[in-house]
């Protein structure tokens, strides 16, 4: 079963990272060599101690005997091999995933090394010799945050793929096709190359969509009046009624400044939607923050200067508040044996779900304005690359089922986040840089999508694991997509020539990432989520993802995924048998008919309505055997073995759980001995 294969090794960094098969025949170093990775000299020179023996890995939630094993440092990963277990167990931590490394005070057991990862994995090692610990510590500090972009994993990652296939991979997502899908170019909107040399805005892509009515002078003029030249451009056009979602940065209005071209630009956007006499201008910041910006010559639109706009603040907090909120949330998640009160109070005090709700509310506001009020909306925050990206992409997701498919979701991230200059490199701390620039803006977006999945379980083509995998790779720097801060920088870094795109790799694992309950592309159109506070849940699968003891012990998703693959196998079997049986009796035939009818009814063809149908596997790009993640269709023999397997699985889980009963129950044996009063 897929689950037990996955469970037998904690591979951090998601299934997309290369892994050794079996592991037994090759040590971790050999794995890297076998993959043929160019181990960069820069990385290697940071590694003074490539191998440390007698290292313990403590489990935060159980009082099990700590494991004993060997820790390896490779150019890309920290690998811990558990020698005490009967089955070889490896823990891989990608250097880029490491958020912090701490050396804790020396104990009798040795020198503790605490590693916090950006994917919320927490690893607590105890290293026998303090000297070893210190060397690992200093190596990891350097390896986790390279100074130069060239040292990022993506530039050395080599999945042995031909140059052609790599290039095809980068072409998988074409934003122009998405604009075509919206019907652009049309009478009102056009794709302009006004920014082809980044003259208008160096953090925008070369091609942007603006109203046809806005001429070059308007565009240039408006760009001078917008923070960092980020002029209003189209994010999403709702074809049904011509209402558009546009995005930009704050105007340089100060207390009284105005700009004719900018006013013309907004007018052009409003008039591109003739059905509505007005448009919304939404500032996603809290009003106070926006007002403070006026003193610095920035600010927000004065309703008196723009015709027929309705101006509105939506108070989403800034990146610093969000960073601190996450920090508090993680402290709550890490608390040892908290009481229910501790946990709920901590959750409340972190403010995390309040912020998630604020982002969701804003997305819902946009979607409603467009769909129900038929009004166009212009959205901005300060620079228009954090809150604006969250809100615009959520609104698109709510309005258009295409973005809830595999392909659509990739397009959405490419369009609203990558192309429009969300500063992944800074927000994710890819390189050694200003820690105040780091913020979980994208994580919040991913969580909003997850919250939507909880409310609408049949509307997404993909499942929770797909979100987690993307989240992993935003930090992993294994693929080029999320490197740098904007399109221009990625060009300068030559990522299209030197690195691989993430998307084809994800598509290859579609079987694992699909949602078995998906009802197809046409089943649901716009989503109207409930945003009352009780509709938001704490996402244990993200923030306590590596604390398996806390998760449900039986996974419905795994069960249904195996049903899906079994279904395919059975359907094949049935048709094969039917072919062998030329003469069937009456009753069997009718049964067979009704069944096949049902089968075709429930088979999903979500891509048929989209311009690019790529239901088939994405070409030979990825026929590289080692990359393919097979979900084996359960054969009849497997079926028989399954019970034994799952028994084994449960026994192992059981061991995990007994210890997880909170402090009191966890210390049951201790309590049993000491409780006599």
């Amino acid at each position, binding site marked *: 079963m897929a689950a037990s294969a996955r469970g037998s090794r904690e591979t951090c960094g998601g299934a997309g990272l290369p892994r050794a098969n079996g592991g037994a025949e090759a040590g971790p170093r050999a794995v890297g060599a076998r993959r043929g990775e160019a181990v960069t000299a820069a990385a290697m020179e940071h590694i003074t101690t490539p191998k440390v023996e007698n290292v313990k890995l403590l489990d935060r939630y159980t009082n099990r005997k700590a494991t004993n094993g060997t820790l390896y440092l490779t150019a890309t990963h920290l690998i811990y091999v558990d020698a005490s277990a009967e089955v070889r167990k490896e823990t891989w931590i990608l250097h880029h995933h490491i958020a912090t490394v701490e050396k804790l005070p020396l104990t009798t057991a040795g020198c503790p090394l605490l590693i916090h990862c950006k994917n919320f994995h927490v690893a607590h090692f105890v290293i026998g010799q303090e000297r070893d610990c210190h060397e690992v510590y200093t190596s990891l500090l350097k390896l986790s945050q390279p100074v130069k972009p060239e040292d990022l994993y993506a530039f050395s990652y080599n999945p042995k793929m031909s140059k052609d296939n790599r290039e095809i991979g980068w072409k998988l997502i074409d934003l122009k096709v998405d604009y075509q899908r919206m019907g652009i170019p049309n009478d009102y909107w056009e794709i302009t190359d006004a920014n082809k040399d980044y003259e208008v805005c160096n953090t925008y892509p070369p091609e942007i969509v603006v109203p046809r009515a806005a001429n070059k002078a308007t565009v240039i003029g408006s760009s001078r009046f917008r923070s960092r030249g980020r002029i209003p451009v189209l994010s999403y056009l709702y074809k049904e009624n011509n209402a558009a979602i546009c995005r930009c940065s704050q105007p340089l209005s100060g207390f009284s400044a105005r700009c004719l071209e900018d006013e013309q630009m907004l007018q052009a956007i409003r008039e591109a939607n003739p059905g509505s006499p007005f448009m919304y201008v939404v500032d996603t910041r809290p009003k106070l923050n926006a007002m403070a910006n006026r003193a610095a010559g920035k600010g927000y639109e004065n309703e008196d200067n723009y015709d027929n706009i309705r101006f509105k603040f939506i108070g989403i907090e800034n990146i610093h508040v969000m960073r601190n909120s996450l920090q508090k949330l993680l402290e709550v998640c890490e608390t040892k044996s908290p009481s229910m009160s501790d946990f709920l109070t901590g959750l409340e005090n972190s403010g995390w779900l309040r912020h998630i709700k604020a982002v969701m509310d804003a997305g819902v506001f946009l979607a409603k304005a467009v769909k129900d009020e038929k009004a166009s909306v212009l959205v901005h925050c300060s620079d228009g690359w954090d809150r604006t990206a969250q809100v615009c992409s959520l609104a698109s997701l709510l309005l258009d089922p295409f973005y809830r498919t595999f392909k659509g979701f990739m397009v959405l991230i490419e369009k609203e986040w990558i192309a429009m200059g969300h500063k992944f490199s800074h927000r994710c701390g890819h390189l050694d840089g200003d820690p105040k620039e780091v913020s979980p803006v994208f994580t919040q977006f991913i969580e909003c999508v997850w919250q939507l999945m909880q409310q609408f379980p049949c509307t997404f083509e993909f499942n929770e694991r797909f979100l987690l995998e993307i989240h992993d790779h935003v930090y992993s720097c294994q693929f080029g997509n999320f490197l740098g801060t904007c399109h221009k920088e990625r060009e300068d870094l030559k990522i299209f020539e030197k690195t691989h795109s993430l998307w084809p790799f994800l598509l290859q694992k579609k079987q694992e990432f699909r949602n078995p309950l998906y009802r197809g592309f046409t089943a649901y159109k716009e989503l109207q989520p409930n945003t009352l506070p*009780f509709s938001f849940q704490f996402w244990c699968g993200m923030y306590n993802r590596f604390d398996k003891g806390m998760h449900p012990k039986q996974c419905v998703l795994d069960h249904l995924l195996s049903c899906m693959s079994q*279904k395919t196998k059975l359907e094949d079997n049935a048709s094969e048998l039917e072919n062998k049986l030329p003469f069937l009796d009456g009753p069997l035939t009718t049964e067979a008919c009704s*069944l096949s009818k049902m089968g075709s009814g429930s088979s999903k063809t979500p891509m048929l309505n989209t311009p690019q149908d790529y239901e088939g596997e994405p070409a030979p790009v990825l026929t590289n055997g080692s990359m393919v993640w097979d979900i084996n269709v359960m054969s009849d023999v497997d079926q028989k073995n399954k019970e034994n397997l799952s028994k084994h699985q*449960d026994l192992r889980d*059981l061991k995990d759980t*007994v210890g997880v009963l909170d402090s009191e129950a966890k210390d*049951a044996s201790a309590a049993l001995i000491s409780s006599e009063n």
Partner: protein
Amino acid sequence: MEFAELIKTPRVDNVVLHRPFYPAVEGTLCLTGHHLILSSRRQDDAEELWLLHSNIDSIEKRFVGSLGTIIIKCKDLRIIQLDIPGMEECLNIASSIEALSTLDSVTLMYPFFYRPMFEVVEDGWRSFLPEQEFELLSSITDEWRISCINKEFSVCPSYPPVVIVPKSIDDEALRKVAMFRHSSRFPVLSYYHKKNGMVMMRSSQPLTGTNGRRCKEDEKLINATLRAGKRGYIIDTRSLNVAQQARAKGGGFEQEAHYPQWRRIHKSIERFNILQESLIKLVEACNDQSHNMDRWLSKLEASNWLTHVKEILTAACLAAQCIDREGASVLVHGTEGTDSTLQVTSLAQIILDPRCRTIRGFESLVVREWLQAGHPFQQRCAQSAYSNSKQKWEAPVFLLFLDCVWQILRQFPCSFEFSEHFLIMLFEHAYASQFGTFLGNNENERSKLKLQQKTMSLWSWVNRPQELSKYKNPLFEANSLVIWPSVAPQSLQLWEGVFLRWNRSSKFLDEAYEEMVTLIEYNKQLKAKVNALRRKLAELETDDQMQENA
């Protein structure tokens, strides 16, 4: 008929009904002795409301001019509103509902009037008899016997007529032990763990008082459950402090000097009004849609509901751990042994015994550990979250138990034969029902009420195949293992199916459930088809061979 006196206005036209997720309906309101009925004048009869008076927890009335509004809050937590034209009509209706929903005589309750419209295949009153349970036990071990000492409910009024006790203890000794235990609830067998022969017993507190009274027979009885040289654990569901205070009132706990082979562990589980207030606060928080996120989380926290869930589950895990892991026998009690004790013993069985995770097994568990064990349903479930009466004995003990089961079900979604709907159905029937199953406070009362003769059992209705299919869990795959739930706060959730049921639409979640059922059912049919085809092919091949041979 007395009901007629209570119904001054049996019928009002042009009443408008407002309820969650449905558009308002206008229709005719009728009151009968047991139901409030609203039927619209639409031809298709689609809009009808039948509400048991006994399901009504509280009502409020308001007037705007001559238009009256009655807000009805139900025990299943639903809130509906009736707009009634005419002040007099409205007042009459309100006072009738008030009177009919708080009838003080059990024999006036609906189950005594209900005539089943279905054919009874199996009499639920006879589905789960202690004798059958004992038969099962005696096929594994001969260390226990069935005692009829309580035949006339003369020894312990809240125990069933027959109980299972250690073979070596005779009825005379039992009588003495009964004198030493609160409300005479002497230790009886609750569960036998086949895997290692360890047992779980339950009782009430011993009456040690301040001067440390002891009872040799009591010591002998519980020691009889120990293997030579082995120790046992006593799980007291009160904190040590509370247990010590109980001595002043004649109660107490087992002194180690007199029970040297037993270790006592105190696990505090809250009782009575603390639980009732917790429920009231939780439901208030869920119903108030004006909360912002911080307020919601702090209200959820302040209700302490999930804290109670965690405490109960933790104690149950501990009991299960002692039995399965430590290989020790366990005695569970609190004060009376009718509330927290039963939560612990029944949940421990769900963890340990795969049988309890089947529908039949779970029903049997509810019968054994709740109904026969004397959980006072009538007192505890008289009112629900909207009650204004502050009766000290009302408490959502059974609902908390169901919530804990739901938490385990959520963590082991494939290990239960029943789905969440089954638990919700039991919650509803425990508070208001056409069936007699949950009437009365113990078997003694039920026998006096002649429920078996005069009312229909819930199980007679539920266990018919067409009804049962509604409650089956499509993911169920028999799992013979012990299932250990996680009690970390991150692993416990608000039971939306009960507490948010009337506050948010479940349309999309229901569709997901349907989709899951369709997928699994389709696979089953496919498998059957493939097997049929294989058989057919094999037959044809043998036919061919035979023809060739001939």
